[in-house]
């Protein structure tokens, strides 16, 4: 007598529970398709447009940030260094090289989900194209670490995963990424302190 209701209940539980869990898992795992990947860096040039896929739109609605338009700029995020290891706040990194052609750029260290880190105001948390010192060949090296270092330094002292966010303002990078090899800075891990 109870077989039918139990089976129906089982079906509904699998449908709603499975559907909700898989939707929430997929949203956490991916920011949508259509990424440009250059080395360790990826960007989503269509994320703010009507052409974004449903995953991206769901992410966008949940996040609620006002994204950069196409003529405004492009945001690149790196979650791992050039060896493929995930970025960690306990480690020190050297970000060196050049950026694609752009009128202005700034580099910031955020937590793994893109929120700013809790850093005392006296420490530098970001650098931009006007404040970054260059080598004689035009390339730069930025040291991201807990200990101060001469030259370009961004302070990083966290116990969790982090990401580097490089924002290019007014750049043709999105349009040309598929046609030519664009140079992005490399991320090298220098060392980690103990847990």
């Amino acid at each position: 007598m109870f077989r039918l209701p139990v089976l129906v209940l089982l079906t509904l539980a699998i449908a709603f529970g499975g559907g909700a869990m898989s939707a929430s898992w997929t949203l956490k795992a991916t920011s949508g398709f259509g990424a440009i990947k250059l080395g360790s860096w990826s960007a989503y040039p269509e994320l703010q447009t009507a052409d974004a896929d449903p995953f991206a739109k769901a992410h966008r609605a949940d996040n609620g940030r006002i994204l950069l338009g196409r003529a405004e700029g492009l945001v690149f995020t790196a979650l791992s260094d050039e060896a493929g290891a995930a970025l960690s706040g306990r480690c020190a990194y050297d970000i060196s090289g050049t950026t694609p052609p752009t009128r202005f750029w700034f580099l910031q260290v955020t937590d793994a989900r893109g929120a700013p880190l809790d850093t005392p105001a006296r420490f530098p948390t970001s650098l931009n194209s006007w404040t970054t010192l260059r080598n004689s060949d035009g390339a730069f090296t930025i040291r991201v670490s807990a200990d101060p270092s001469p030259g370009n330094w961004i302070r990083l002292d966290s116990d969790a995963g982090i990401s580097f966010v490089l924002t290019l303002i007014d750049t043709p990078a999105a349009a040309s990424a598929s046609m030519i090899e664009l140079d992005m800075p490399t991320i090298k891990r220098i060392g980690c302190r103990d847990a």
Partner: protein
Amino acid sequence: MRSLLLAIAIGLLGAAFIHIIIILALPLWTGTDSWTRVKALGASNRFYALANEPNTTGLYNENPNVRTAVCHFDVSDGPIRIIASGDVPIWTVSAYDSSANETYSMNDRSAIGSGVNIAFVTPAQMLQLRRIMPPALEQAVLVELTRPEAYVALRVISPTPSHEPAARAFLDTALCQAMSLESG
């Protein structure tokens, strides 16, 4: 046993269905999408400069180099003009519809003068303007919006702290005003 397997199979099918529905419908009911947040800032037709720290509005300047102001409006009753000027290194503007899709963006490199001078219009208003262009809009960039409700983000680049006052002045004096077209 067979009916158990059938129940599980139908359940999995339902899960796939619900998964798709959730992904597609999420933008409609999160309540945290940028359109909802911008509308919650206050009345339409004025610029609100965003704070530099996370706060209850959910919107803030995420980077010290970019200062943003937002304005939401409705073009059904007439064109909306965005006007701003000042001594800043770079400014950018983008417009989004009520689903947070980008409808237009530009930066100071493609501006006619050195300041921001954009007018958002409906297709019907655009036809009217093509017949008779008011002098006020002669130098403006005209952008046609298919959906009447929209919001605009005006951003100023402030590379060093010494640029802050000029950036703040640029955003504080920016205008997001309605204008009426005299009916001919």
